[in-house]
C-alpha cells in the first residue's frame, strides 16, 4: 500500500496522534490491567454501546480508525508502522470498546471482507464499520457442524435475483447486539463440501432472522444462536464468489488465529501466578506437602506454556510458511493444560471450591476456572483437530481416509446416515 515510513515521518505522526489522544480520549483508570479472557467479557448494555459507538465515530473522523485500510473505503492507507505508532500513543487511554463482536468486526470480519468482497460491497459497508455503525458478528458454525466447518447445512437457495436462507447458526459471539452477521451457507449440494459454500452479510434486523442468547455453564450469555427462516437477501449481500466461500473461510480462519498469536500463555515472568498464591493463602496454607507439590506442578506447566509461546514465535519467524500449522501447538497446549491446571486448583481448593460465601472468594474463582477450562479444547477447532494438523502438516504423517472430500455433499450426508464402516 505504502512504502515504509521514515523515522521523521513516524515521529511526526506519533506526536500528532499523542496530541489527539490526550485531547480526546480518557485515561484508563487501570491502565495495564490484566487482559480479559474470552469468557470474562462484560454485558454490553444499550447505553454503553451507544457511548462506545460515538467514541468510534470520533476516532474515525479524526482519521485514526482503519489506519492501514484502503482510502477508497474510508481507511487511511498507511503502513502497519503507523498503526503501531498510534496504538503506542494511545496506550493507557480508553480506546473504543465495542465488545467481543467489535473485536470480531475489526479483527476478522472486515479484514476478510477487504480481501474478498466486491468494491461496491466494500464502499457500502466498510465506512460504516469504521464509523461504529456496523458491528459484524460471525455466523460461522452450525449446530450440526463445528470443527467440520465445511460441513455446514445452513443453506441459501437462489430465487430469481434473491437468495433465500434457511437453517441455524451457533456460537456467534455478541450477535445479540451486532448490526449484521457474516454468514456461511451452502449454495450447492451437488459438489464436494468445500466447493458449494458462499458467504453472505445478513442484517440482524432481517425478517425471518431470530437471535437467541445461549446461557453458558459459567452463567454468561455472550454466545448466540440464530435461526434463519426464509431470510431474503440479494446478490449485493454476497461476499466473494458464489460457491467460492471456502477460500474466504480460510482467510477468516487466518485472521482468527492471528488474533490469538502463538497462544500458549503470557510471557515468562518471575514468581508464582497470583491466582495460585491467593488460593493457597486463603484455603490451603503453604505447609501441606501435597499442596506444595500441586502448586509446583502448576508452576512448571505455566512456565513451560509461556516459553512454548516464545519458541513457536521463533519457529514461525524462522519459517513463516509453517506459522498456521505451528499455531496448532499453542492451541493444543491450551486445550490440554487448561483442564489439568483447573483440576489442580480444584484439588488445592478442596471443599472451598464446592461452596462459598461470596463470588470474590478464591474457591469461587477455582470453580469458575473449572467450568471455563475446556474452552480452548473445543472452541475454534477441537484439540483433536489440532492433533490432526500437527500430525499431518507438521510431522508429515499420512492423512486419514476421507469420505467427504470428493463426493457431492448431498451424498455425503446420505452415506453417513447409512454408515456401515466398509468402504469400496
Amino acid at each position, binding site marked *: 500500500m505504502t512504502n515504509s515510513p521514515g523515522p521523521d515521518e513516524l515521529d511526526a505522526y506519533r506526536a500528532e496522534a499523542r496530541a489527539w489522544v490526550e485531547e480526546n480520549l480518557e485515561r484508563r483508570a487501570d491502565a495495564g490491567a490484566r487482559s480479559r479472557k474470552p469468557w470474562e467479557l462484560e454485558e454490553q448494555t444499550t447505553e454503553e454501546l451507544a457511548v462506545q459507538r460515538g467514541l468510534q465515530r470520533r476516532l474515525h473522523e479524526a482519521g485514526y480508525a482503519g489506519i492501514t485500510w484502503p482510502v477508497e473505503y474510508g481507511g487511511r492507507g498507511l503502513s502497519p508502522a503507523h498503526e503501531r505508532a498510534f496504538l503506542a500513543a494511545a496506550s493507557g487511554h480508553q480506546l473504543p470498546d465495542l465488545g467481543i463482536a467489535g473485536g470480531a468486526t475489526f479483527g476478522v470480519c472486515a479484514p476478510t471482507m477487504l480481501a474478498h468482497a466486491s468494491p461496491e460491497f466494500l464502499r457500502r459497508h466498510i465506512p460504516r464499520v469504521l464509523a461504529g455503525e456496523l458491528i459484524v458478528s460471525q455466523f460461522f458454525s452450525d449446530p450440526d457442524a463445528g470443527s467440520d466447518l465445511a460441513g455446514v447445512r445452513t443453506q441459501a437457495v437462489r430465487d430469481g435475483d434473491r437468495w433465500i436462507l434457511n437453517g441455524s447458526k451457533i456460537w456467534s459471539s455478541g450477535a445479540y447486539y451486532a448490526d449484521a452477521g457474516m454468514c456461511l451457507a451452502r449454495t450447492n449440494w451437488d459438489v464436494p463440501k468445500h466447493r458449494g459454500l458462499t458467504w453472505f452479510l445478513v442484517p440482524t434486523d432481517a425478517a425471518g432472522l431470530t437471535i437467541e442468547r445461549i446461557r453458558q455453564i459459567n452463567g454468561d450469555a455472550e454466545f448466540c444462536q440464530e435461526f434463519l427462516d426464509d431470510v431474503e437477501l440479494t446478490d449485493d449481500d454476497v461476499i466473494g464468489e458464489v460457491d467460492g466461500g471456502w477460500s474466504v473461510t480460510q482467510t477468516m480462519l487466518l485472521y482468527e488465529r492471528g488474533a490469538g498469536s502463538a497462544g500458549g500463555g503470557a510471557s*515468562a*515472568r*518471575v*514468581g*508464582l501466578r497470583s491466582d495460585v*498464591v491467593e488460593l493457597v493463602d486463603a484455603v490451603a496454607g*503453604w505447609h501441606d506437602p501435597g499442596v*506444595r*507439590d500441586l*502448586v*509446583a*506442578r502448576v*508452576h*512448571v*506447566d505455566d*512456565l*513451560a*506454556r509461556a*516459553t*512454548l*509461546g*516464545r*519458541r*513457536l514465535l*521463533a*519457529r514461525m*519467524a*524462522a*519459517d513463516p510458511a*509453517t506459522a498456521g500449522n505451528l499455531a496448532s*501447538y499453542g492451541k*493444543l*497446549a491450551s486445550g*490440554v493444560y487448561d483442564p489439568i491446571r483447573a483440576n489442580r486448583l480444584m484439588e488445592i481448593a478442596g471443599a472451598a471450591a464446592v461452596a462459598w460465601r461470596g463470588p470474590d472468594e478464591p474457591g469461587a474463582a477455582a470453580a469458575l476456572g473449572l467450568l471455563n477450562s475446556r474452552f480452548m479444547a473445543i472452541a475454534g477447532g477441537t484439540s*483433536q483437530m*489440532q*492433533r*490432526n494438523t*500437527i*500430525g*499431518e502438516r*507438521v*510431522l*508429515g*504423517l*499420512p*492423512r*486419514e*481416509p476421507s469420505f467427504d472430500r470428493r463426493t457431492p455433499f448431498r451424498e455425503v450426508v446420505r452415506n453417513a446416515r447409512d454408515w456401515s464402516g466398509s468402504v469400496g
Partner: protein
Amino acid sequence: MSAPRPALVPSPSEEQAMLLDASVRFMDDLVPLSAVRARADGADLDDEAYRRGAAGLGWFGLLAAEAHGGGSASVDALLDAALIAAERGARLQPGPYPGHSGVVRTLSAVADPAHDAVLAELVQGECWASFAVDEAGPCELRRDGRGLRLVGEVGRVAEADLCRYVLVAADSEDGPAQVLVRTDAPGTEVRTLEGLDVTRRWGQLVLDVEVGPGDLVAPPGAATQALLADQERVGALLTAAEAVGAMASDLDQAVAYAKDRIAFGRPIGSFQAVKHLLADASLAVEMATGLVAAAAVALGGGAPDGAELAHAAKAFVAERSVGVAHDCFQVFGGIGYTWEHDQHLHLRRLFADAECFGSAGWHRDRLLDAAGAPR
C-alpha cells in the same frame, strides 16, 4: 514432507551453526550409535580420542572464563553448551558432559589459582570431571586431628569410572562446602554399578579421604551454597538438554516408523489413535525444548527468572520425557521390545536422565523456593 527435527533453537547464529555442524560430524564419525551399542555390550570407548576431539571443538571451554582458556560461540555461553548437550542426547553420547560443564563453571567462577591446573586439564579435555546430586544428602567434612576428612558416599554418578575428579558436596561445622576429589586418591573408591541406562556406565563413590587445603573449592559458607546451587542448576539444565535431544530423536524414529509400517491396509500413522499419540508427544517435545532453551538463556545471562526456569525445565523434562518414551514404544509395538531396536536405548537413557542431577520432585521443591513461595 517430514520436516527436519528442529534444533533447540530454530535459528542458531552462524557461529552456533558452525559449532553444531562440526560437533555432529565429530559424534557421528567417532561414536555413532553402533559404538554406543558396542559399549553397552562390554566394549570400551576410545575415551581419550573423544575427550580430545570434543575439547578441540570447544565443548569444555564454553563455561570457562577467557582467562582459563574458555570461549563461547555466542553471548549465551550456557545456551551454546545446551545446544551441544541436545545434539549429544540425540545421539545417546557417552561421557559426563553436564557434570563436567558444571565443574568447569564452578572452578572458573571461584578463580582460585590453586585450581588453575585442574581447570586447564578439564578445558583441554585431558580428563573428565563430574559431580552428582545425591538426594540422600551431602557427605560429611570433619575435623580430624590436624586436618580435614571427607567421609560418605555419592550414589549413582554417571560415567564415574571415566572421571579423574569428582566435586563432592559436603556438610561441615562451618556450613556447606565443596571438595574436589581425585578418584585415584587413597581412601577413594569408585564402585561400579549395574544400571538401567546401558548407554553410559554408572558408579558409586565411597569416600574416607584426607582433604588438603587445596582440595576445598571454596570455604564453607553462604557463598559456597550459592555456588553449589548454581552448579546443580547447570548440571540439571544440561541433563535436561541432553534428554530433550533424546526425546526428539526417539520421536523422529517413531514418526518415521508410523509412516512406513502398514497394518489393516494403511500406514499406521494414518490412524488417529496413533497420529494423536504422536502429536501429543510432539507437543511435549516442543514444550520441553522451549523451556530448556529459555532456561539456558536466562540462567546463563543471570536473569531474575534463571533459577526458576532451570528448576522448571528439569522438572518438566523429567516428568514428560518418560511419557514420550512410552508413547514411542507403543508406536513401535513388538519391534521396540528387541535389543536390536534403538527404542530401549532411548527409554533407558530418558529414565536415567529423569533421575540424574535431581528428580522431578527434587526440582519442584527447589522451584517453589526460587519462585518465592512461602515456606
